[in-house]
């Protein structure tokens, strides 16, 4: 593709201009590739899953982000569970206290302790001799 002369009145076709591309690479670029290949060759061939996850820069960021997110979620879940369990414990304690109160109350009713009204009625209904008085 030869570009038309500046005085040509034919409009240039941009797609035709794209067909050319770059002519070649630079020595610096070739050297960078050789350095890359040597670095890759020096890496151990067997990589653990963790090494593969953090192998690339982007993988490292993703892994770090996922770990941080997981830690935050874990902490939030732990706090929630702890607060719920405390509520449950306190509720059980309260229920036990109520049960104890009711049991004490029942034992009071079953025992010889009378209310004032019951005591007064009992005294009035007792024989005079029992009162310890009379003429």
């Amino acid at each position, binding site marked *: 593709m030869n*570009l038309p002369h500046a005085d040509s009145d034919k409009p240039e076709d941009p*797609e035709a201009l*794209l067909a*050319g*591309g770059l*002519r070649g690479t630079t020595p610096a*670029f070739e050297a960078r590739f050789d350095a*890359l290949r040597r670095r890759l060759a020096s890496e151990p061939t067997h990589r653990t899953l963790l090494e593969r996850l953090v192998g690339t820069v982007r993988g490292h960021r993703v892994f770090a982000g996922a770990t941080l997110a997981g830690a935050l979620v874990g902490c939030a879940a732990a706090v929630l569970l702890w607060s719920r369990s405390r509520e449950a414990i306190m509720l059980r304690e309260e229920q036990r206290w109520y049960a104890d109160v009711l049991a004490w109350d029942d034992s009071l009713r079953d025992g010889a302790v009378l209310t004032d009204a019951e005591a007064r009625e009992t005294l009035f209904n007792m024989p005079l001799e029992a009162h310890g008085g009379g003429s």
Partner: protein
Amino acid sequence: MVLTRGTAPSPACAIPAQVWSWLAALTEHVDLGAVDSGLDTRDLADSEAMRRLAAGDSRALRPIFDRWKLPLLSYFYRALASRADAEDLALVVFERVYRSASRYRPEAPFAAWLFGIARGELLHELRRRRRKPLEPVAPAELAEVGGDLNHAAEIEEHLLAALQQLPERQRTAVLLAAAGDLDHAAIAAALGVSVNNYNVILHRARQALRDLFNKVRP
């Protein structure tokens, strides 16, 4: 043993996988140092090179690099309007090719797989970078450029400016179509769309590029 091969197949060649397996078996003990020193690297099939890469032989990256460095560089240069950024990204792609070699399936065209990776890296770079001024190369660095070099430099700058205004998918479609290294199916696969959808994208891209280019030109 040195294996004499014929012309390297194009990505769209319909050579069965069994033939490649046979070739792979014959070349099991080929010293790839010979490839570096004298053999024509284009003769080494992409799939064979990927098979060796997956086995951990980093020397097999060389023939892939030799075959695809210019198409990749040209694609990135036109998309980013900067040769330096294009070189950085091209090296990232070759490193990704090496690390992903075990996931490559020879049933798929290598060019589609390669440019799928390239497009992914380009999208990542576009999201990351801020708007940068154009850095067109000198006309002498462009293939098939003749005539008035000043005029060529001016046109190159206008072309890059027009390309920057295209949506990324349209830009990729028109760049890969113009390069001629991939067929329509491979480009559609690299874009992640059907062939019909790709044809529509390409048609719109061509129209848009023409309009933008004519608008940018004084």
